């Protein structure tokens, strides 16, 4: 039973890897993820609502110092929130998404 379960997990993982961007994000560091890339993307898109580069609340919430886990933030970026935040799942690669996380985690929480 345990072997069958392990085999199923391996097959599932292989299938999701084969689908490229559809692969569920993993907490492990993604090769190529770069906070500077994340900053560029953030400025052009996310900063429209998350003000001062995500340091203060505006249309969107403050992201500096957020206690939301990476997986939560990644999911929110991918699928959005109706009427509040667009779904960027088809706009970004996994490296870009991870770079956004790296940028957000690097924001200094100044409590503003």
């Amino acid at each position, binding site marked *: 039973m345990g072997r069958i379960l392990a085999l199923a997990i391996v097959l599932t993982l292989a299938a999701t890897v084969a689908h490229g961007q559809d692969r569920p994000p993993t907490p492990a560091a993604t090769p190529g993820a770069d906070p500077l890339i994340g900053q560029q993307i*953030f*400025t*052009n*898109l996310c900063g429209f609502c998350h003000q*001062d580069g995500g340091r203060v609340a*505006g*249309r969107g919430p403050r992201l500096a110092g957020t206690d939301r886990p990476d997986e939560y933030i990644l999911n929110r970026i991918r699928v959005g929130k109706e009427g509040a935040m667009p779904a960027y799942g088809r706009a970004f690669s996994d490296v870009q998404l991870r770079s956004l996380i790296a940028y957000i985690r690097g924001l200094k929480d100044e409590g503003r």
Partner: protein
Amino acid sequence: MTTQRRAMYLVGLAMVATLVGACSMSTSDTGTPRAAMAEPGGGNDWTTYHGTYESWHYSPLTQINADNVKRLRVAWVHHPGRSTRGLQSMPLVSNGVLYYTGSYSRVWAIDAATGTPLWSYFPKLNDDLVAAQTHSPYTRGIALGHGKVFVGTVDGRLIAIDQKTGQPAWDTKLINSEKLTVGFTGAPLLVKDKVIIGAQGGEWPGRGPIFGVDAASGRKAWEFITVAGTDEAMKTWGGDSWRTGGGGGWMAGGYDAETNTVWWGTGNPAPLYDWAGSDWKTAGPRPGDNLYTTSVIALDPDTGKLKFYHQELPHDAWDFDSAVGEFVMIDRGGQKLVVHPNKGGHVFVYNRADAKIVNVWPLVQNINFVKGIDPKTGALIGRRDMALGKHTNLCPAIAGGMSWNSGAYSPKTGLYYKIGQEWCMDLEVVKTTPVLEPQAQLNIGANFTLRNPEGGKAFGHVSGRDPVTGQKKWEVKFTEPPLASLLATGGNLVFVPDARGWLHAYNAETGQELWSHNNGLGHNGGIISYSAKGKQYIAVATGWGSLVGDEFGALFGEPFKSMPKDAGALVVFTLE
């Protein structure tokens, strides 16, 4: 008469009869706005987004007036449901039927006297695309005529619905929204046999088209591209920046029937903020004037050909569209004029024949993106072009000195009523990766934070002014800028739906408040007046949650912090 001649005679007679029939249909049975629009106010009906082609947002009705407005009470309410981002639309009325649209381009026909729904039409939209859009899923209005209701969708379609049955007549895909992410949120404008509608654009890297569509068949008749749409305009975009220049024309324009000219305002260029600073003519992501962004353009409605234009802000580096703002057409001292507010806080007054500047005047106090605008030429004086790095106290803020909601003009008082927004922002301009191809991404180019103006708090105001000189006759201040359109009436009234949810009626001559009512939700849409079965009504959209309104929670706190952004209702008033 030979047989052949007789046959031709009969065919000709039949054609004349058909034309006569069509004309009578267009003015009675179907409420086509052609005839009504030629008369200021349109009488009992409200048949186009801006009230009439003159864009006065004025009803000549006088049953509700300054003497009896205290007796105004709710007559009926309609809840559209799924009011994601509130209810931003302007209702229309024709022959006792009210038509309006809610979020997701859902359309209703309602008995205008009783509030009884007659039909509804909910188009099936591309849900994945709607979820991916920033400026979505609201729809700001419809057009009426030729027996149809016309509505745009955020997934790039223009739909015609039979005015009597509610059944779709045609459904035309105009934009590849799946690639560009933009669609239609603004109301179409019907001019003769063409339905004219402009796409979103601005911060989205595309070329912002405006379309003319045959009202009968749904066939696209013409397309005017607001970014480098002519050889002249192409020269104003350095390198390949024209490919992703933004633009668009996301609000309904006006129509000058005397010269057969459509006036339309265009959106800002992308990216919004330009790291080239004062070197913008030769450097940066979009070197040059960037025609025809942030411009007013005059188009031939039959062909879509450009007649003339004026670029209100050459190389707009602040996101101060000309797409916002009605085209108020007035005659003054023998001059035929158009008054057009720009998002940056100035009001431009043009000669209607050629868009030559007659005057430019500031409506808001907090403006420092320019030192001024030459009232004789329209030239910007002392531009504040911001290079890479941090900048403080840019005024107005990105939300503008004026927003897309419309002001009103009363021919009785000769005053123009308009909302002003007083706020500023700090920003950091960033040199981002160039966006070289149209794609599903915003292109902003800066981080920013809205803030209070120096020495005071952010606030709003509504004033009654001379539309040509800007001379102020009265002003009412609001703790937060109202974000809805205004209505002036022949009853010497100006209605102001405010951000907190109160609907106010003021004396149009003096600004004295005469009546108010709490609708319980912020207003961020339209307001009209009409008559049905002998009674005058005022209809206003309530419902909060636009991109500008979303700023209010952080800036002003309650009641906006907890105000629902997924609710809305059409509230209709009459005298008790």
